[in-house]
């Protein structure tokens, strides 16, 4: 037991929890019993709040623990997180403002809502909703892995601390909705920036400079057989690029990312954030390098849990009180994304499953109540996942999650630009992409972790009969299958004169902005869809 660390961790955790409950009264406009208020914070967040909220949402505690762990184990390949989070913002900048506009005009809350209006297909919307929920669940569970790694390092074992942490989280999310993580994100990110800035100055100075850190890493990788190393080799460059690009395509398809975007006040807020959010990428890049510092400092993980590398490093090099602050940063860092993710998944359930299939005439208040209860269920599910099943299973599931959420790209992402696809083609493409993705992942073995299947996302092209050792990101291949089938399916559906769904949107809806009379009118009337 490490008393100083535990006391500081607990204090900060309690302060933040208090803020979570108070958040219900923060920036309160009207009735909290609607999805617009509970689930999207009144769609009113300005640039700063959006920056903290989306930053806290996308760069999760798990990322901060797992990326350096990957660098520690595999070297350069783990750095893919940097190009991934560089290319994503310029790529989605123009796409997201269109999504924001059309969502405001039509009062949409989830990506599946958009598909429903755009393609007039409840089936396609249901598939998108289920894909979103399934992809998000293990992601929430992984936030617990981040907290667990910290608790383990402080010597707190057993499940009780974890259950208490998540129970508090569940309670204030239930009460305050999206306002809670938005308010907490300020504290979380301030703590994380502080810890990392100190870490990248203090630790290299202690370890004899950057050059010796990289030399130690190189020596470690040289002693083990390829494919690790401090640079890429001929066989994993394509994997590096396709993984970065595929992950970037997938990022804003996740329901929790969309929630953060839709909560912003206008188009300018989103555009400005696309140029301000890379500050977090810089942070992530520096955190990634902590993996090499851990090698140079001779840090050993607890048991075989490589996720404990970073907490162990902090514990080794920092004085106790500052290690406590660092652990609190990671622990609180897990709460923000976990809250937003559970809200996003709950909104999907309330909007696209409950309202579509169980209660067509649900009032705004009923919808919000269902969503609040669903957010509790989602969190209990996540805790059970971690407690009852091997955490490795959640990590595998999250890997699968990235591949499957990518399969909603043709309907959600491309759908924002073109209505060319036929709903039948999109459904067929989705099914083909999902099947292909599962098949590819199933056939990836990883001897290092003793996995015969689902051993990673790097698919060896030799399995397709090519005489090469090159690997490619499985999600990328699955997406190509999806697109090809969606295009062919659309041609077939047209040739068979199969009925297509009506498009409920107009071209000008994609440019509407705050203050546009049409937007305002709909915002103050009942939900329209």
């Amino acid at each position, binding site marked *: 037991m490490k008393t100083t660390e535990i006391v500081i961790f607990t204090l900060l955790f309690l302060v933040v929890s208090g803020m979570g409950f108070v958040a219900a009264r923060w920036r309160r406009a009207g009735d909290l019993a609607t999805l617009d208020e509970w689930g999207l914070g009144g769609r009113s967040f300005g640039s700063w709040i959006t920056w903290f909220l989306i930053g806290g949402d996308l760069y999760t505690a798990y990322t901060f623990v797992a990326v350096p762990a990957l660098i520690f184990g595999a070297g350069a390949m783990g750095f893919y997180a*940097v190009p991934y989070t560089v*290319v994503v*913002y*310029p790529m989605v900048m123009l796409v997201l403002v269109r999504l924001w506009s059309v969502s405001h005009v039509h009062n949409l809350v989830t990506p599946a809502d958009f598909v429903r209006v755009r393609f007039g297909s409840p089936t396609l919307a249901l598939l998108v909703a289920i894909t979103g929920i399934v992809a998000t669940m293990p992601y929430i569970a992984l936030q617990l892995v981040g907290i667990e790694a910290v608790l383990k390092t402080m010597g707190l074992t057993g499940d009780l601390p974890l259950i208490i942490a998540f129970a508090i989280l569940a309670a204030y999310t239930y009460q305050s909705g999206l306002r809670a993580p938005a308010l907490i994100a300020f504290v979380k990110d301030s703590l994380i920036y502080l810890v990392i800035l100190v870490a990248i100055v203090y630790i290299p100075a202690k370890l004899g400079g950057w050059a010796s850190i990289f030399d130690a890493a190189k020596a470690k990788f040289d002693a083990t057989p390829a494919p690790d190393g401090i640079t890429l080799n001929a066989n994993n460059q394509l994997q590096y690029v396709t993984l970065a690009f595929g992950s970037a395509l997938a990022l804003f398809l996740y329901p929790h990312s969309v929630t953060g975007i839709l909560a912003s006040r206008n188009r300018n807020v989103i555009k400005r954030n696309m*140029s301000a959010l*890379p500050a977090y990428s810089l942070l992530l890049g520096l955190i990634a390098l902590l993996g090499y510092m851990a090698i140079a400092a001779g840090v050993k993980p607890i048991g075989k849990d490589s996720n404990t590398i970073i907490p162990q490093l902090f514990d080794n090099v920092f004085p106790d009180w500052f290690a406590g602050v660092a652990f609190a940063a990671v622990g609180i860092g897990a709460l923000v994304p976990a809250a937003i993710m559970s809200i996003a998944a709950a909104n999907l359930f309330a909007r696209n499953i409950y309202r579509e299939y169980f209660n067509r005439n649900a009032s705004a208040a009923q919808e919000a109540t269902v969503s609040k209860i669903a957010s509790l269920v989602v969190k209990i599910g996540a805790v059970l996942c971690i407690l009852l099943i091997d955490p490795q299973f959640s990590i595998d599931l999250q890997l699968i999650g990235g591949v499957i959420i990518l399969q909603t790209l043709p309907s959600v992402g491309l759908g924002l630009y073109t209505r060319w696809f036929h709903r039948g083609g999109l459904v067929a493409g989705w099914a083909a992409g999902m099947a292909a993705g599962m098949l590819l992942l199933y056939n990836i073995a990883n001897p290092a972790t003793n996995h015969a299947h689902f051993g990673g996302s790097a698919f060896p092209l030799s399995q397709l009969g090519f005489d090469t050792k090159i690997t490619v990101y499985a999600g990328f291949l699955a997406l190509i299958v999806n697109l090809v089938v969606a295009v062919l399916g659309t041609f077939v559906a047209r040739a068979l004169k199969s009925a297509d769904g009506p498009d409920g949107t107009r071209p000008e809806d994609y440019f509407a902005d705050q203050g546009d009379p049409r937007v305002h009118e709909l915002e103050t009337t009942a939900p329209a869809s």
Partner: protein
Amino acid sequence: MTTPRTDRGRSPDRSPLNWLLLLPVAIPLIPPLFNAVEPRLFGIPLFYWLQLAFIVLGVATTTLVYRATRRNR
């Protein structure tokens, strides 16, 4: 194509400057540009410092496009 009144007939999503956004998407995805150890910067291999520098490229481009296309009201 019709546009909302506030745009006075011009779509703000259409600007030639938008093509600039392709640069920070394409350049970080070309490994031959950065897959080397030398030259180092403060002891950090090229692979790491150059990719971190691409963040600046991304910020510069998105800031430029944002400033050029934002709507003043």
